[in-house]
């Protein structure tokens, strides 16, 4: 079995539920050791795709490989290498935290002294040490998420699939959980993270796939997507000391790479298609023609803007 550098490979994946095409011909790769965001609105097909990757669902067509193993033909091998945390974390409410972890250690064939050391490492990493004797049903949502993450780590998987891990968490728990994910990446794990809370993903994701209505609309690193999306153009917002007159638009139209966008009081904006260093010519001309520049802001496309540009918000 070939172990590719790509830890997760998805090719032409399609899943249909009756008349609804939940996932339509989806393809993407996830390299080792990165945090890959899987972004899409509710009902876009994220969870269905994740269920196929996690060997819980048989696709209608296409294929998925985890560490080079096909999820259909070698599900047992895939499960050994994969830790899955579903969107709705189910816990055995009668068990204590230590019993819960002990159970999942046994289901992962971790016995004896190895079990002890692995559980102690996992507990330390997820900071569950003080909660070991607590009953699972007495834990807060954030603690349960950490507990579920802990159980996915017991067998030392190479790939972690986390489906909406931050949903329903308070800001503090979100930050703690984000730090935990970054720590896991530092330890060499690959993390495949689905979410529709973009502010959670943008600071930590190395690459993303954006899915809408079952189709991948963008795939790659944030920088790559940004470049591709805006086709080399940048938007500038300028604040003048005094509100400009209608002659400003005529004046700016003389620049070949500039497209005037709008004015609003003392502010105006334009799109620049030329090289970034050439835009200084615009500032010089404006100054020499009596316009006093009070401030300049270049708009960067963050994940939210990219997401909004690429998706229509429609669900199936």
């Amino acid at each position, binding site marked *: 079995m070939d172990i590719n550098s790509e830890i997760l490979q998805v*090719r*032409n994946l399609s899943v249909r539920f009756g008349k609804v095409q939940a996932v339509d011909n989806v393809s993407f790769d996830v390299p080792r050791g990165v945090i890959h965001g899987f972004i899409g609105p509710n009902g876009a097909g994220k969870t269905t795709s994740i269920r196929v990757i996690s*060997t819980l669902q048989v696709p209608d067509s296409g*294929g998925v490989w985890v560490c080079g193993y096909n999820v259909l*033909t070698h599900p047992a091998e895939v499960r050994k290498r994969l830790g899955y945390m579903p969107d709705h974390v*189910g816990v055995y409410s009668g068990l204590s935290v230590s019993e819960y972890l002990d159970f999942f250690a*046994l289901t*992962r*064939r971790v016995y004896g002294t190895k079990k002890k050391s692995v559980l102690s490492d996992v507990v330390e990493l997820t900071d569950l040490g003080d909660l070991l004797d607590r009953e699972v049903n007495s834990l807060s949502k954030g603690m349960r998420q950490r507990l579920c993450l802990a159980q996915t780590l017991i067998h030392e998987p190479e790939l972690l699939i986390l489906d909406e891990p931050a949903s329903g968490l308070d800001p503090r728990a979100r930050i703690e959980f984000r730090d935990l994910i970054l720590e896991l990446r530092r330890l060499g794990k690959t993390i495949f993270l689905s979410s529709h809370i973009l502010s959670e993903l943008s600071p930590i994701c190395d690459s993303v796939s954006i899915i809408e209505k079952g189709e991948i609309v963008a795939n790659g690193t944030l920088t790559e997507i940004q470049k591709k999306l805006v086709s080399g153009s940048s938007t500038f917002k300028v604040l003048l000391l005094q509100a400009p007159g209608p002659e400003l638009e005529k004046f700016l139209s003389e620049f070949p790479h500039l497209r005037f966008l709008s004015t609003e009081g003392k502010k105006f904006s334009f799109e620049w298609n030329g090289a970034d260093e050439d835009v200084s010519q615009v500032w010089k001309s404006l100054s020499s023609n009596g316009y006093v520049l009070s401030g300049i802001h270049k708009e960067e496309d963050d994940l939210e803007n990219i997401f909004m540009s690429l998706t229509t918000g429609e669900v199936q």
Partner: protein
Amino acid sequence: MNKGMIAKFFGFAMVQKDLILTLKKNRWLLIQFLYLSIFGIVLAFFVNSTGLGFRRYEDPVSVVTENFVSLYFSLQFLVIGLVFPFLSGNSITSERIDKTWPLLKCTELSPFEIIRGKYFALISLSIYIMMLSAPLLMLTTLIGGVSLFSVVFEYLIHIAYAALICAAGLFSSAMSSNATRSNLQIVAMFSMPVLFATVFALNAYSNGELLSSVLGPSSNYLSSKEVLIYWFLGFFVLVAGLLGASFSISPVNSLRSIPLRIYIFAFYLFGIFAFFELLAANVPGSVSVRNYSQNWTIYMVGMVLSSLPLLRIAAEDPGVPLSAALLTKEKPLLGRILYPFVSGGIRNLLFSFAVLSLFLILLKVGSVVDLSKLGSNVDSGLVHAVMLQSEGSFIVWISWLCSMVAIAWCLAHAGFGSILSASVTFSFQLVLVLSMAIVYVANVDAVPTYSMFSTPFTYFLVMSKEVFPSSGTTMFTYLLSRGDFLLNTGTTFFFIGLGTYFGGRNQRPLLSLAPESRKGLLLDPPGLPLQEQESGVHLSRESVRPNEKSTTTGGLDE
């Protein structure tokens, strides 16, 4: 056998988890309280009714002990029938409701291991609850009247009863996605057999007997061979429950059909030989024509029910499971050996036919029966005629089941779901049976019992002709005179043809083990990473098909 293997065999992880969860629940405390209350109430009522301890009782001590033990066991039998169907019937459903099921399925536990673990946990609980009263009950044996062995054997029978219920309950639970469905299914599945078993047990207990005197090695009613057969049948039913449950939770692309089909084949074979033995042993000398005929009627009723799993198998997904296709590719010899037991294509139909054809063994019963041993007041000519007539209608019956199986198979190939195809066919069969039952009730004197289990054609034929052929008539000439046999055979061939046509049109595999029905699935590892193939980021709604040539269904078709 190392620790890991033992843990794996007993599903130790599941046993441990389920026991902790159940024993911690208030419900379990309530069950224990209920159980001990019953014990206390029995004791109190018994002491009161016999006057034990207040005045001298009339009966000898041994009789009092016997009655007490019988009364206690009859109540315990009732409690098992009430508690364990619901305890086992929610075992897997509760995992689904609590959303822990996906986590469990993502672990390294196989479906059968999950079922085994849950099963052993349930058995442990049943033994635990029964053992609560055991010490006190054992003490009663010191008084006399009941032997220690019979009490121990009685416990064993009760544990076996709980084991059977738990296996069937797990099966029901594995098939249900929510609690309501599970509970309804449990009531539907358990009411009849539990009622039957309870009436049977209470009948024995009310006569001051223990079940061990009926089903034990020194049974008062059954020969040792018959006892063995009953225990074997019980064991088979138990295994069926566990295998069925594993089947229900296994992924569709797995080899789940193979063990179940092998088991079903063995089960039918065993059942037929068991009946063969019992019938043949019972007929000579001891019975009348009426008994012989009744045996056949009971058997035919059994066949109505037995057709249900066969219809389900015939109507299974026509596609070949992916794992089966891979097995054939990687281990051709094993693939060839297991070929008849792999689901998909014409094998679904042929397997059902093969099981039905096993019933033909029963036609040999006639040659085993020694007519000379019949009593002098029995007309041996008439017995022979009844045998021929029964056997003839039996073949017609099989032909009818074959036609039903062919209809189910055809519907599945036409694109209906497997459960829908089986249900529609079974409903059709039930409507016919009910119609004929009404006809039978209306003409009870003129029509033999079996006619209610045959096609309407039989009715008209039976009404218009002499019911029994003469003793000189061979079975086959009799069969040929039966229009419904021809009708059923014609129907069978018609639906096989139609199913084949639909299969061809929908590109279903008929004979091969190649996964044609899953043509779109990519199996070989993709060559280059997506980025390299696409030279940069992919940013369009139209997905790319990387390395399409090398990522078709792999070498499976070759």
